[in-house]
């Protein structure tokens, strides 16, 4: 590929100035204190060839289709459990499994309308899925606005290079929301509010999709239907809610009673088929780190196809054979606590002291369901501009799959990189930066 990015790279500071101008931030709570930070942008894009993308696109569609079928199955027939493909302990002991969702049938059988699939590219060119995010995956707004800005700052770069458009993500979202809404009313994005870490994204998506940004207290349920309240008791019907509030806070009458973020009785309206929840409640059972192990098996089970995308080699201490392997090799594996997210609860055996290794070994032995272990993938470093010099750091890719009537993979994604040269952790909450992801035209 003949790519010309010099002009864009030289404009990195200007791009970051524009990011500041548009308030491209994310919030972090540290020691109970909320801080907003600019999300550092690196102007050297991650480049994916059209051939590689075609492969990823097929794999991502296949994986998300299987995950949606799994969710339907878990909350209906449970065939995959009865057939012994996924042990029932992994489903019913998952924090993400919500019994109240049993029997609920979302439109078109779609539970994960927006899936964020985290991938890394190994040094051998093989892509591996590290994690499926099916609850509230965030991050698409950053490459979206980055593209908007980089095209302004360096138009010539985009004249030189045949880069697939990525500013259509809002259209993908809006179309999917309209399909799920089915003409029942307005579509809203429900945000927990300004002090949510992804608030910028909530408000930016509302602006770009034409949906209404709803705050806690703006929505209410009457006769099993959801309404948006106007200032003087007027109301308008809501047909779909792209909710950025966690499951447990969505309905205080059914889940966390102290929640002020949710909508009392929304689950009743949802059960009655009067409102679409995007993503569905209860998806956590399918993106549980323990369930991840079974996703390739789901692909074969539901679709009768060989999985296109590979998982990172993973071991479940729950299985005796895997447990023995993990305990013998713990010092060279990465161990993940299945209940943690955002890069937390991830421990590299090689970084632990003898005492820490002993403690972790004991925990894995006594609470095997709580952990998964993975081989450390030597994934590709990407070029990062640091103080006018190029350095190489670890990076991943979060690809976004939008499922409505059709399953569509957004031709871009959030490339996050570690700002610490020795770290594999790329999460923004832990100081990482981001890049635009260029999918090249054929």
């Amino acid at each position, binding site marked *: 590929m003949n790519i010309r990015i010099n002009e864009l790279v030289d404009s990195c500071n200007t791009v970051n100035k524009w990011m500041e101008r548009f*308030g491209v931030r994310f919030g972090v709570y540290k020691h109970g204190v909320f801080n907003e930070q600019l999300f550092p942008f690196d102007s050297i894009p991650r480049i994916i060839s059209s051939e590689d993308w075609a492969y990823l696109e097929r794999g991502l569609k296949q994986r998300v289709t299987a995950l949606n079928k799994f969710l339907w199955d878990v909350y209906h027939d449970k065939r995959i459990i009865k057939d012994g493909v996924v042990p029932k302990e992994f489903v019913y002991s998952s924090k993400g499994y919500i019994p109240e969702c049993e029997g609920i049938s979302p439109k078109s059988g779609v539970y994960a309308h927006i899936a964020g699939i985290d991938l890394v590219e190994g040094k051998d060119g093989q892509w591996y899925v590290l994690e499926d995010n099916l609850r509230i995956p965030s991050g698409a707004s950053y490459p979206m606005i980055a593209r908007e800005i980089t095209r302004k700052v360096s138009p010539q770069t985009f004249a030189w290079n045949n880069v697939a458009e990525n500013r259509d993500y809002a259209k993908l979202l809006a179309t999917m929301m309209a399909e799920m809404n089915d003409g029942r009313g307005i579509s809203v994005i429900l945000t927990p509010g300004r002090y949510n870490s992804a608030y910028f994204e909530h408000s930016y998506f509302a602006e770009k999709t034409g949906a209404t940004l709803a705050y806690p207290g703006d929505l209410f349920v009457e006769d099993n239907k959801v309404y*948006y309240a106007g200032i003087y008791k007027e109301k308008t019907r809501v047909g779909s809610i792209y909710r950025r509030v966690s499951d447990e806070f969505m309905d205080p009458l059914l889940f966390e009673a102290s929640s002020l973020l949710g909508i009392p009785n929304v689950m009743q309206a949802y059960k009655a088929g009067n409102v679409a929840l995007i993503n569905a409640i209860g998806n956590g059972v399918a993106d549980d780190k323990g369930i991840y192990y079974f996703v390739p098996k789901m692909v074969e089970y539901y679709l009768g196809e060989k999985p296109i995308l590979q998982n990172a080699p993973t071991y479940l201490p729950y299985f005796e054979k895997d447990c023995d392997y993990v305990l013998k090799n713990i010092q060279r594996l990465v161990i993940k606590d299945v209940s943690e997210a955002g890069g937390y609860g991830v421990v590299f055996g090689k970084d632990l002291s003898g005492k820490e290794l002993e403690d972790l070994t004991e925990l894995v032995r006594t609470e095997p369901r709580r952990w998964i272990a993975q081989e450390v993938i030597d994934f590709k470093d990407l070029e990062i501009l640091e103080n006018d010099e190029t350095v190489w750091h670890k990076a991943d890719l979060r690809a976004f799959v939008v499922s409505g009537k059709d399953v569509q993979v957004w031709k871009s994604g959030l490339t996050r990189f570690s700002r610490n040269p020795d770290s594999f952790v790329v999460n923004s909450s832990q100081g990482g930066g981001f890049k635009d992801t260029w999918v090249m035209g054929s």
Partner: protein
Amino acid sequence: MTRNHLISATKANCLYWLGRYEERVYITLHLLRKCYDKMIDGELEDYAMFWTRLDANGVYQSSEEFTFGMMYDGDNCASVMAAQTKAMDNAILLREDIMSETLSYLEMSVALMKECRERKEMNIIALQPIIDWSLAFWGSAEQRLRNHKALYIMMTGRNVENLDMLLRFDYSYERVALAYDSLKRYLHQIPTIIDDHIEGQLNHLIIKEHFNLTDVEYRNKVLKFINQLVRV
């Protein structure tokens, strides 16, 4: 996508206070420039007058401290920094209504305020871009706000603040009456948010025969009514 024409209580509140705080930024800078000009000739008492009129508690010992505090002290509720931050706090909740382009003028203003505070910039001229961006903000908002009621609520806030400041700083009857007329033009587009009783009182008070800002009781009464006129 079906458009929502309703404005929630949260948003109405933000729109109103965004209008008020952004106007406060503009007027405070304007008044500070006048005060600053007087201080060049040694009229050091002038800054104390600011406190009295804004009902703020002055703790600054010198004109330099006063100038710096009025510009950058976020804990001083009368400062430009405090008003700009509060305008931003409200605007950030309205991105999809006012749009990112409009919001960006406030983002730039907050960033410039912080930068000037950091380098202890004492020359008020350094804040001129904030006045320019404030005007750009209003123009952009007027052009981009698709919901006219939302625009009227915000403009109502702007005009209430303008009137409030004119009264506090003893502007002439002509200026005050003009500002009150301007406020009423927006208010009557959204009659449901007006307290009719208070409007009646104001109509009676803001007429030439009754206008007397040297009468403290009169001034306080008009200020009280202005601030209670709108129910959001």
